[in-house]
């Protein structure tokens, strides 16, 4: 694979490749050396033990114990074995990821998940060749450590507006769609097993249904991994992704249900009814846990103004606790996690500092990225390692049934859903939704949890085949298909104050029209919820004056801050990006005596924040600009004029853009000599403009 065969021209992949080879070789030896270590430990253990026996002797000091030379260098691997191996795996996974991105050609065609699985396969092969039994895959490890970061990342950054607008559709796909898949696949599979020729007569109906449950759930990890790279429009993304998140409740209920039943043997009507009740308990209970923890987290963040450093930890820990608490009661941990993230986010973001926000964002992305990588690699390793029982009929029928049931399910459900939707789903949309039903590691883990038997092995083989098929075939072909069908891509979201104004305007307009029509619709209830949120909840959960800040203003402030930071960051880089337009406030202000405006009164604390950022960064900028113009231009002392001119130009540009963003007329008449700026760090035009704007 790419990582093992270093590429000809570039040194970096070769280095990475070498490192990978080294690591690949080291890992099996690390595990193989377990036996060696236990021996070596004994040899070192003996002197330790013997010295332990000797304390009384030592006090006597006349010790006839033969004196061994003091061990200058010793080897004790057992001591650090577990953390060492874990770190080694994670490091290896990340190096693989690094390697793929250095080689652009491959990563354009093949999605990352496929490459990672292949790497896992190779690793598994190597480990097997070394004849070492490494039972890495632990379902508990997967569900408790690998899955939560990915789900939290997804839930925390879930785009709320499209999610709630399409909630009905998503729920129908998740619940009804999964049920349909389960019973279709399970039922037909049982029918196939009954056929004499297949010799699968011993697979009972309940086992088939259990298998159907495991295999029918769309997997959020796989969906994320593939859809992230193809950038389709928001609606389709949220449909498939939302479905993969919300079908967890159905999967959990059905899985436990069929597992219990296959032990009991028979199903009664009471059991079926209890199953339905259980579904509601599992999903609503999970959500309730999430909401409770979310509110707790939001409330805690209200008081963290003096301990900013630990703010991100609260977010992570409360969410993880929500997940674990839900798992205690066998409720849907995924829904709990999503609910917690969604509930917590608006309030926490209003309370925490900007740095904490960035920390949370990057930590979540980092953890979910590592988890995803590890999951796919482990999937590959377990494929080679796992107990297999290949049965042609079973496997092929499974793959075919999965595809057929997915397509039929989507078409049928869309037909019903379109009656209730305002914006109907077109054929193209349906195709993408059907094609995006990828299976992944959750199915594998659930299968792994089954009690060991010949059937389990057969099931596992089929599950792995389906996963491979969906991830490889569907994952690789979805991008060219999206291009071919000209599916709408994700529009580049530039935060626009106009769009925000009109979104709010439209909300109020539609609510008003609904009231005039006399119809308590969608918008009416959303408006009521917003008002409730504003009057009670925000006051409780948000600290200080931010609790009464209307959404438009907070959006505007956020945008200004972002642009100010972007400005200073770009100003300190080597090249200034070209100005988009030369329009400034002068062009818009009505002509007349109003040349001196009253200053906009942003709140004091905001002012301080913006001012601090701008001033701090501008000083850095000034220094950097100076060094840039000195070193980069490599000029003689008497060519100072050139750099000065360039410097002045850059200053003017920066100022103009600043005034563009901070809505204050640029005072371009004042082109005082720039040299003054260099030698008088205290006074500068820029800081003066800050004083004007704020």
């Amino acid at each position, binding site marked *: 694979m790419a990582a093992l065969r270093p590429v000809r021209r570039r040194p970096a992949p070769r280095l990475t490749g070498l490192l990978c080879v080294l690591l690949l070789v080291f890992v099996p030896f690390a595990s193989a050396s377990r036996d060696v270590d236990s021996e070596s430990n004994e040899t070192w253990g003996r002197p330790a033990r013997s010295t332990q026996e000797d304390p009384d002797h030592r006090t006597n000091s006349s010790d006839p114990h033969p004196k061994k030379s003091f061990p200058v260098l010793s080897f004790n691997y057992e001591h650090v074995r577990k953390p060492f191996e874990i770190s080694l795996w994670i490091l290896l996974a990340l190096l693989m990821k690094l390697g793929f991105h250095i080689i652009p050609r491959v990563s354009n065609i093949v999605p990352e998940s496929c490459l990672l699985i292949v790497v896992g396969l190779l690793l598994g092969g190597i480990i097997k060749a070394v004849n070492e039994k490494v039972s890495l895959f632990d379902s508990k490890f997967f569900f408790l450590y690998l899955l939560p970061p990915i789900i939290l990342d997804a839930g925390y950054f879930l785009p709320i507006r499209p999610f709630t607008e399409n909630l009905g559709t998503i729920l129908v796909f998740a619940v009804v769609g999964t049920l349909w898949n389960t019973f279709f696949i399970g039922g037909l599979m049982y029918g196939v097993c009954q056929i004499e020729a297949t010799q699968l007569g011993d697979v009972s109906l309940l086992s088939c249904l259990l298998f159907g449950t495991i295999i029918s759930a769309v997997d959020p990890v796989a969906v994320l991994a593939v859809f992230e790279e193809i950038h389709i429009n928001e609606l389709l993304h949220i449909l498939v992704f939302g479905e993969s998140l919300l079908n967890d409740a159905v999967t959990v209920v059905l899985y436990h249900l069929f597992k219990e039943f296959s032990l009991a043997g028979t199903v009664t009507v009471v059991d079926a009814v209890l199953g339905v009740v259980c579904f509601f308990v599992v999903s609503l209970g999970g959500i309730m846990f999430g909401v409770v923890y979310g509110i707790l987290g939001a409330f805690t963040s209200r008081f963290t103004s003096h301990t900013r450093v630990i703010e991100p930890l609260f977010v992570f820990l409360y969410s993880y606790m929500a997940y674990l608490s839900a798992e205690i009661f066998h409720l849907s941990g995924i829904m709990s996690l999503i609910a917690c993230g969604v509930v917590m986010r608006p309030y926490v973001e209003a309370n925490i500092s900007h740095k904490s926000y960035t920390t949370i964002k990057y930590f979540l992305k980092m953890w979910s990225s590592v988890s995803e990588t590890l999951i796919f690699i482990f999937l590959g390793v377990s494929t080679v390692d796992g107990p297999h029982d290949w049965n042609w009929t079973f496997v092929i029928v499974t793959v075919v049934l999965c595809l057929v049931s997915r397509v039929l399910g989507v078409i049928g459900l869309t037909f019903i859903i379109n009656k209730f939707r305002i914006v109907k789903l077109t054929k193209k949309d349906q195709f993408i939704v059907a094609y995006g039903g990828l299976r992944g590691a959750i199915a594998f883990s659930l299968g792994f949890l089954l009690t060991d038997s010949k059937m389990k092995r057969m099931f596992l083989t089929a599950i792995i085949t389906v996963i491979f098929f969906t991830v490889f075939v569907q994952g690789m072909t979805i991008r060219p298909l999206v291009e071919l069908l000209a599916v709408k891509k994700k529009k580049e979201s530039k935060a626009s104050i*106009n769009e925000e104004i009109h979104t709010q*305007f439209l909300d109020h307009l539609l609510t008003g029209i609904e009231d005039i029509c006399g119809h308590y619709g969608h918008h009416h209830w959303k408006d009521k919820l917003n008002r409730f949120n504003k009057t009670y909840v925000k006051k409780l959960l948000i600290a200080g004056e931010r609790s009464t800040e209307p959404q438009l203003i907070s959006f505007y402030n956020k945008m200004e801050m972002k642009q100010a930071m972007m400005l200073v960051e770009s100003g300190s880089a080597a090249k200034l990006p070209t100005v988009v337009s030369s329009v400034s406030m002068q062009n818009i202000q009505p002509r007349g005596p109003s040349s001196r405006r009253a200053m906009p009164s942003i709140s004091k604390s905001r002012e301080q924040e913006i001012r601090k950022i701008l001033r701090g960064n501008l000083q850095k900028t000034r220094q950097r600009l100076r060094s840039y113009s000195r070193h980069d231009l490599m000029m003689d002392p008497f060519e100072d004029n050139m750099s000065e001119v360039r410097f002045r130009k850059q200053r003017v540009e920066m100022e103009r853009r600043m005034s563009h963003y901070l809505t204050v007329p640029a005072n371009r008449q004042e082109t005082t000599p720039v040299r003054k700026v260099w030698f008088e760090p205290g006074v500068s035009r820029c800081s003066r403009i800050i004083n004007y704007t704020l």
Partner: protein
Amino acid sequence: MGALQSAPGHQEYIDLAEKTGFSFEQIGVLHKRFKQLSHNQETLRREHFNEIPDLACNPIRAQIVEAFFDRRNIRQNGGGTVEEIGFEEFLVVMSHFRPPSLHMTNEQRENVRREKLRFLFNMHDTDNDGTITLEEYRHVVEELLSRSGTLEKETAKSIADAAMLEVASISMGHMEPDEFYEGITFEHFDKLLIEFEIESKMNIRFLNMDTTTLCK
């Protein structure tokens, strides 16, 4: 048949259906609501709108009500407003909020989009001169923020200014310092909200309006 005699002129309904695109059931329900609002009179006036309790806490209530009486929205010639509207005009205004049907060509969708956009534009352009000036836009933002407790006029002003700046940058590109941007014309408005997908957003569900749940 008794039903025909109680229904006010089925022929009228057919005309209205053709003009606005609503179905007969929808027209029936809306007519019921119209009669409820107007206390069984023939025309609606502004006072009738002001009686709707739910509408009272809407920040842009005044503009919504005005939109019903705006001559441009009820497809009458000339500018300005009327004092009272009949059922037909009521329906015409409501028809701006109908969703585009599934089997529409791209051109038809584009027309629907422009129509909805035109409605929004008319709501902002209160003096009917074809452009949204800075003052009018400021007014829009102020109204949006008017119900949020503290009347932060200055912040509203700066938001509106920033928004106007954005429109100007997008539409005009480069301007000399002494040029003046008159206001947002309809074309600029279109260009501004081109990514907004207004034909998917500006819709009311007229499908299943149950008359028993009509609020007072």
